[in-house]
């Protein structure tokens, strides 16, 4: 899977040129939940907390690759739906793993969502 190959390189990030991508309306994400966007080949989970904060992370739990976007958000962390591992939404840190989940800057303007994304990653092989 393209996502797994990507994870293998996680610790070798380079300073890549970034671009802002529009993900659509804020309202497409139910309050308190996360939804997943495919940016090129990368699946990114975007969360919208009840307090109005926005977070974006790779949709991939460091444990066994579970879909974080389907997780339950509480106290600034998301619990992976597969085994309950907690990932910090801001930092991507997970107490049980040395690997962090990659996070992305995300903001809202006029009801639209804008994700800052490394261009190089966006133009990978075709998604399956």
């Amino acid at each position, binding site marked *: 899977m393209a996502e797994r190959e990507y994870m293998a390189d996680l610790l070798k990030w380079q300073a890549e040129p970034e671009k802002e991508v529009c993900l659509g309306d804020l309202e497409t994400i139910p309050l308190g939940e996360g939804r997943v966007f495919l940016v090129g080949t990368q699946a990114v989970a975007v969360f919208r907390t*009840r307090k109005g904060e926005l977070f974006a992370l790779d949709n991939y739990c460091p444990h066994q690759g579970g879909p974080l976007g*389907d997780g339950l958000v*509480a106290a600034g962390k998301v619990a992976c*739906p597969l085994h309950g591992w907690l990932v910090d939404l801001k930092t991507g840190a997970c107490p049980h793993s040395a690997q962090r989940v990659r996070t992305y800057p995300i903001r809202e303007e006029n009801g639209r969502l804008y994700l800052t994304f490394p261009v190089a990653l966006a133009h990978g092989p075709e998604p399956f």
Partner: protein
Amino acid sequence: MATTPRKERLVIVGNGMAGGRLVEEILQRDPDRFAITVFGAEPYGNYNRILLSNVLNGTQRPEEIFLNPLSWYREHGVALHAGVRVTKVDRTRKVVRGENGIEVPYDRLVLATGSSPFVPPLEGREREGVFVFRTLDDCEAIASYAAQSRRAVVLGGGLLGLEAARGLLTHRLAVTVVELGSHLMAQQLDPEGGKMLQRTIEAMGITVFTETLATAVLGDRRVEAIRFKDGTVYETDMVVISCGIRPNVELAKAAGLPVERAILVDDRLQTEDPDIYAVGECAQHRGTVYGLVAPIWEQCVVLADLLTETRPEARYLGSKLATRLKVLGVNLVSLGSFRDARPDDEMVTYSEPGRGVYKRLLIRNNRLIAGCLLGDETNAEELIRLFSEDGPLPEDRARLLFGLGGSSAPGEVTQIPDDRFICSCNQVTKGRICQAIREGHATVSAIASATKAGTGCGGCRSLVQRLVEAYAGEAALDPSVDWYVPAVPLAKEELVAEITRRGLRSVSAVLQELGNGSEDPESKMGLASLLRSVWNDQYVDERDSRFINDRVHANIQKDGTFSVVPRIYGGVVTPEQLRRIADVAEKYRARMVKITGGQRIDILGVRKEDLPAIWRELGMPSGHAYTKAFRTCKTCVGTEFCRFGVGDAISLGIQVEKRFQGIEFPHKVKLAASGCPRNCAEASTKDIGYIAVEDGWEVLVGGAAGSTVRKGDLLCKVKTHEEAIRITGRFMEYYRRHGKYRERTHAFVERIGIERLRQILVEDSEGICAELDAAIEEAVRAYRDPWLEGQEPVHPRQFAGPELVVLP
């Protein structure tokens, strides 16, 4: 002419352990209600007869064993006629007459006349040097005669006899114990245990004869020998008789009260005469006459409650016999009686003759019926508790014998629940002791005075000491163990009450108003589930508090795909349904179609975004295979086709499943209905199971066959499907209300106890059955198939998969 109202006159005949305790209990409840008069044949205050052996063997002085000395009676305004035997009870005039001629009128009379030693028909027993061993006076007499003797024979190898033997040893006599039966301590030990004890005792220098009957005492004026039945003559200087005790019933008989082995009393400890009661060794309750202190004290508590009207509904229902003692310094714990053994009971035995250790447990239906621990009292407290509470036993029997850790392990006294008895003799709970500690009683003796813990057999004193060490000067215990979820500091019942009272209808509202400021996934899920059971469909559904399975009503798999299990009632499916399932599986490229343990079909490997279409094309409601709700009611064929069928399991199963489908619970609930006792649907290991019998159905609850395996307990037998469904609904509603989050019914039923559940749900002891019926009816009414959200999603992107983003 005005008169001050006269106090009711209470007369107690007998100042032994029963009489003395009864007075204490009454004074504690209502010191001014009665004018109390006590008659005691012995010229002392009330003393602990159990500790007489200590007086005999010199480890305690007589003064030390008094519970209530003479002065105590004076101080409490109780008229004590010590040393005055009662010779007559006149029921017509309601007067009691003492041997010194005194006559005391009574309004209520309690007979606590105890027992007297049984003296067998020994020829020559009037010779000097023959004693019984019952009273302080006996102790003194024996001790002073022993000073001039070299050898002693004790007749009777029971507890008292062995204690007497030990006492005589300390007076440096050569002691022989003569027992009629095959082994020592036949009341508490089985033959092997008795033999083991015999070896231990013989190692102390005591000679033991079993299966031996003494027939005569020989000698001129003083004892010189005894003769046995086989003619042998055995030389000795003194004889102590402890061949058992007989209840003192002459007074009652002469008064015309019904007497069998002892004075007959009912559950209120009342005799045939409504003004006359009996407690203790002289009373026979439901066929049993008790000779142990704990049951007798229980009787006194009940009688005191009744006489003072503190608890008019109090009843004595009998006691389980659990004793803990030291016999000749050897630890012995005895529970129940091995004579109750049946051929198919489970017997667990451990025998280590080298150390004189012998342990035996008699188990039936996974409950402890009888037991003895000789020589090693590891785990005694836990066993006593399991025995007294009739609790289920751990599967690993070795742990029972050699230690369960927990309350016996050092440093873990804080884990003991508050309602656990620390002192079984006096029924003092840990909570009571902790309260006493908080009130400032910081030593074992102080706690003993305040609560009575440790004043019976004394076996719990070391545990009381550990409690003092743990709690004296310490902050309160961590209460969060009782909280329903971590973020709200309330136990479930209180939480539900607050939610109802304040009308809190969303998880956010609950966290805001009742939370402790923290937030975590488990709390949100637990609260979401709780709100649904409290408000049914009348609550604010914050979907972000739901686990993904409950957001999309399917079971997430390890690769992020989902599985779909449509409802197949009672495991009965039609060819047409099978066709639809097959078509859907092919169309949506399911990776696997599998038959489940719940007698239905699972379609695996479908995408979240296809779920609404799948549900629509299946045209079947949700099977709830993914959540903490009613799952299935499996069935066997039953009378529909099976040649052995006695009940229509399929019909019952389908009815049950149609009624309760989708109702949510603290955890998943799986049912089954078997059409005959062959139980092909495995109903006995289900949360609720039905087994058809000749004239109806047995309803079982609390079974499990997952990571825990447990056989369900019989809740009741019913005749019709309607009754089965009604009791099911009641049990379900009670479980919804009182089960902890994620507590399966097997743990719930064990925690509450099947007896209590039966009382509440079948006998309606709390009067809530109508309310439970109404509540479950409301839940049934409010049920809506979650798969209808396929047509009417709660959010446009409820089922959305990853969305492809247009790149710049």
